[in-house]
């Protein structure tokens, strides 16, 4: 490999790489040129800003100011005393909890039904997946109209059934649940497909053997499907939580955080502080909170990654 490889790149470059200690006789220098664009992008676009978030959060940082004074942990202390921050965090946790309670189990149920391979499965899955491919802005617009207090179809339907109607997005108690319900509707198909892939990954011969052994449908589900689906389920739960902590677009389009702060989320408040009020330092402190939460969840996921079931 090595004798050939030297011809693949200019001589000076391979000499430079050898001198830099990156290349020895066994290494083909071409690999570096193949991998380097992506590594540069990681460095400049991911790692530098990632470290930058921590750095900026320790400063009072207004974008147009001449200096950005170092203020230690003041931004974090201020966060602890900021009622809007706590309200935002509370709403975000509510959102994540609702997705875990409704999105994940319903997605699993639908995946199991689709996995029965009934006639029409292709149509059902196509329909349920439709909201996933549509953008958040579009579905947010549509649902703002559905939730419209006077003429939205939701209130019209309720009224025609003789039920009370509500100003869904204008009511402080209902706005966050309304935004969350719409998000569950949008997101279910995503988890459903991951579950479906997980179900598809369970080898046929397990079921065949169970049928020969006389296991009924419930036993096959209980002793084959469920245990083998555990890693997928865990993956879905963690990814749904990570996803939930980023909730932003639907709040921006549907309620602008209102009424009052009823639908503020972590990312919405972050955006408002950072790009509405240009408190880069304060916004970055919130970004670090998000990073810590997401990292915690990811570590949890990595830990169980190893305990995967082997087929």
């Amino acid at each position, binding site marked *: 490999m090595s004798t*050939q*490889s030297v011809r693949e790149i200019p001589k000076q470059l391979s000499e430079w790489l050898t001198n830099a200690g*990156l290349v020895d006789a066994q290494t*083909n220098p*071409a*690999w*570096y040129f*193949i*991998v380097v*664009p992506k590594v540069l*992008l*990681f460095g400049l*676009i*991911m790692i530098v*800003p990632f470290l930058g978030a921590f750095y*900026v959060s320790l400063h009072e940082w207004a974008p147009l100011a001449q200096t950005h004074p170092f203020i230690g942990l003041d931004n974090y202390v201020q966060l602890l005393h900021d009622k809007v921050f706590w309200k935002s965090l509370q709403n975000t946790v509510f959102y994540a909890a609702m997705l875990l309670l409704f999105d994940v189990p319903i997605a699993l149920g639908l995946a199991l039904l*689709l996995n*029965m*391979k*009934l006639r029409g499965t*292709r149509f059902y*899955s196509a329909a349920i*997946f439709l909201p996933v*491919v*549509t*953008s*958040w*802005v*579009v579905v947010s*617009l549509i649902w*703002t*109209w*559905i939730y419209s207090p*006077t*003429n939205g*179809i939701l209130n*019209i*339907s309720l009224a025609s059934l003789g039920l009370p109607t509500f100003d869904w997005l204008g009511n402080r108690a209902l706005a966050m649940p309304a935004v969350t319900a719409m998000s569950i*509707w949008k997101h279910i198909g*995503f988890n459903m*497909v*991951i579950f*479906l*892939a*997980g179900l*598809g990954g369970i080898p046929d011969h397990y079921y065949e053997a169970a049928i020969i052994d006389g296991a009924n*449908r419930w036993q096959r589900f209980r002793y084959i499907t469920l245990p083998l689906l555990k890693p*997928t389920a865990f993956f879905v739960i963690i990814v749904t939580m990570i996803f939930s902590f*980023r909730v932003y*677009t639907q709040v*921006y389009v549907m309620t602008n955080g209102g009424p009052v702060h009823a639908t503020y989320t972590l990312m919405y408040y972050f*955006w408002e502080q*950072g*790009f509405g009020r240009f408190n880069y330092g304060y*916004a970055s402190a919130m*970004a*670090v909170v*998000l*990073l810590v939460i*997401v990292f915690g969840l990811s570590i949890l996921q990595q830990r169980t990654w190893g305990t995967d079931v082997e087929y």
Partner: protein
Amino acid sequence: MSTDLDLSGEDRTGTGRATGTGQYVVKALAHGILIVASALAIIPFAYALLTSLKPEEKIFSTMAQIIPAEPTVMNYVNIWMQNPLDRWIFNSLLLSAGVVFFTLLLDSLAGYALAKGDFKGQRFVYLLVVGTLIVPPQAIVVPLYIEMSQFKLVNTYWAVMFLYIANPFGVFMMRQFFLSVPDSYLEAARMDGCSTLQIYTRIMLPMAKPALSSLAVFTFTFIWGAFLWPLIILSDSAMYPLQVGLAGLTGQYSSQWGQLMAAAIIAALPVITAYLLAQKTFMEGIALTGSKG
């Protein structure tokens, strides 16, 4: 990779083999639930479509008036004439095409190097991929904005694209795919005198077509729907992608639902059309996020 979604309707769990009335009840129940779920998923889109076809003054309706008596395309004409929708669509297409191109190129290269390469620092690069995989892009937009303004890239297409091209997901995915290619293929190609890059272009890329098309579809959907970063980094409305432009219309057309729904339908149409043409590829793209290869 174990992400082949089987939507064929072919029974493999033996659920359909048993007979008797109990089976019929279970099946009927399953159909019932799936029909309700499908209807719930589709109705909001149908409602948006119906609204968009109604004259603005007749939007205020009762249940009986949901279906427009005299459908009109005036809402589409008006929203199109009054806003640079064509420009926004062009921007979205350009950004999506750019990101898809660079993602496929750079991620397949890097994935190839990680799966089949043998070089110092390979493990470091892999850790970089796995590490950046868990960084939520939203959390780094403030420092990235500062960096982009240092480079004088604010309000450029490049700035929008960089964040998405740097996404590590595709590298991870392509690495998993290339790991499944037997080494003997590469050795045989070496014997025939192929260089490392020739193996990539002649052997690896052609084999990776299914994985690449899934990645392309996944990336396209993602970029088409991207919102927060373009909203932040672009200051000129002529540079906006469709989603950002669309979100800005809500204030302007606060109660003109016919026109807003027309805009929503226009924005949804390209992706929905592509989706209906290639449903399986779309779903496999999503399923790949859950696969560990």
